[in-house]
């Protein structure tokens, strides 16, 4: 053990925190080291002196202290009770407000008829949905007739009527396209664009041109028109159904 370690061991020795082995080695060191022995005596003296330094406690005025304690306790209790009272009042007020609001909701539900959705946007959407659905149904029928026909109508009157119908459908297709210009529903606008090509051809082909007829049939097949019309038609149907429910 060196002298530096010995100082630490001395303090622990006075506080009886040394195990017998360390105590023994400290004592051995002290026997061989007069400076540490002197230091040991100094520390002992200091600690003994410090142990008694707080001195005798003066007599407190116990009654005065008790009165202060009692006052503080009463004040604390009163403050706590006031806090509890305030919290309780707050909870009661919140409960009353909750019941009042719940009553309004239930009352509205029971006594008032369901409010009609009169917003302009919703109304426009419904009308557009229905128009698109109707338009797609009619275009689908017309294209189905073109597709199933082996050759062009030989009767001039029927031929003209079909062309007229194609022109009308083309006009409506363009109107809808213009209306849906800002629409985010890209599948509908894409279909209307493809339909425009087909309807344009149908509205303008000549009686003798069987090539145009074949071209329309190929386009119907390539663009998968019937499947898309059915798909979008169903989608529009479900959308308008939902809106009607709302």
């Amino acid at each position, binding site marked *: 053990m060196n002298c530096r370690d010995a100082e630490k061991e001395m303090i622990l020795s006075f506080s009886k*925190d040394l195990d017998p082995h360390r105590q023994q080695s400290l004592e051995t060191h002290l026997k061989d080291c007069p400076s540490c022995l002197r230091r040991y005596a100094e520390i002992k003296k200091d600690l003994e002196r410090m142990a008694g330094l707080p*001195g*005798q406690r003066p007599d407190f005025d116990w009654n005065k202290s008790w009165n202060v304690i009692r006052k503080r306790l009463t004040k604390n209790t009163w403050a706590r009770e006031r806090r509890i009272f305030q919290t309780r009042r707050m909870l009661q007020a919140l409960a009353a407000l909750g019941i009042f609001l719940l009553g309004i909701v239930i009352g509205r539900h029971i006594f008032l008829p369901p409010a009609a959705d009169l917003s302009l946007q919703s109304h426009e959407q419904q009308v557009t949905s229905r128009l698109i659905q109707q338009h797609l149904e009619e275009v689908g029928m017309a294209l189905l007739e073109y597709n199933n026909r082996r050759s062009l109508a030989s009767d001039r009157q029927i031929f003209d009527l079909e062309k007229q119908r194609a022109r009308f459908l083309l006009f409506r297709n363009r109107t809808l396209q213009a209306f849906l210009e800002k629409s985010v529903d890209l599948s509908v606008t894409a279909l209307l664009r493809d339909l425009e090509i087909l309807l344009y051809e149908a509205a303008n082909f000549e009686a003798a041109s069987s090539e145009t007829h074949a071209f329309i049939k190929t386009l119907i097949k390539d663009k998968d028109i019937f499947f898309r019309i059915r798909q979008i038609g169903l989608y529009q149907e479900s959308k308008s159904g939902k809106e009607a429910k709302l």
Partner: protein
Amino acid sequence: MDVEEEALIAAAQKGHEEAFEKLYIRYRETIGDLAFRYVGNYQDAEELLQDIFVKSFTAIKRYKPLPDARFFSWIYRIGINCAINFVKRKKRTPFRSGSEIRDIDIQTIRPLQPDTQYANREIREAFYKGLDTLSPNQRMIFILKNSDGMSTAEVAAHLKCSEGSIRKQLYRAVVKLRQQMAIYGRRES
């Protein structure tokens, strides 16, 4: 725990003021000693004593008697925590010399025994100045170990830390205190 104390605690938990007073009379001396030893002056010790009892009586509803723990240990632990917090709050407790103590209320203070070596006012002043340089925890460890004569295990249990940590802090406290007292002694001479 004796039967009377048990009954007193039960009554205090129900809020009976008389029970509070009896418990106060029972423990005021011990808690007063702790407070005075820790802060070293009459005024602060009295304030600390009041703090300890107010805190104990406010928390008494949460006290649950355990077979291996006495009520005294519980209240003493509150006292220790209060004392540590008290010094933290005050940051630096100004030491009041013996003359100041006498100035406060000469009638309430017992006269110091003339033959005791601890009556030396200057050493005492140096000692408390040294204590002020310690952390509140180190200060409490030193007081409990050196002045109260508690074992390391008891101090560790009261302060809820390991015995090793108590030993380390005690060593640091003693070294610091001796340094402070030596500085003061040199300055005085």
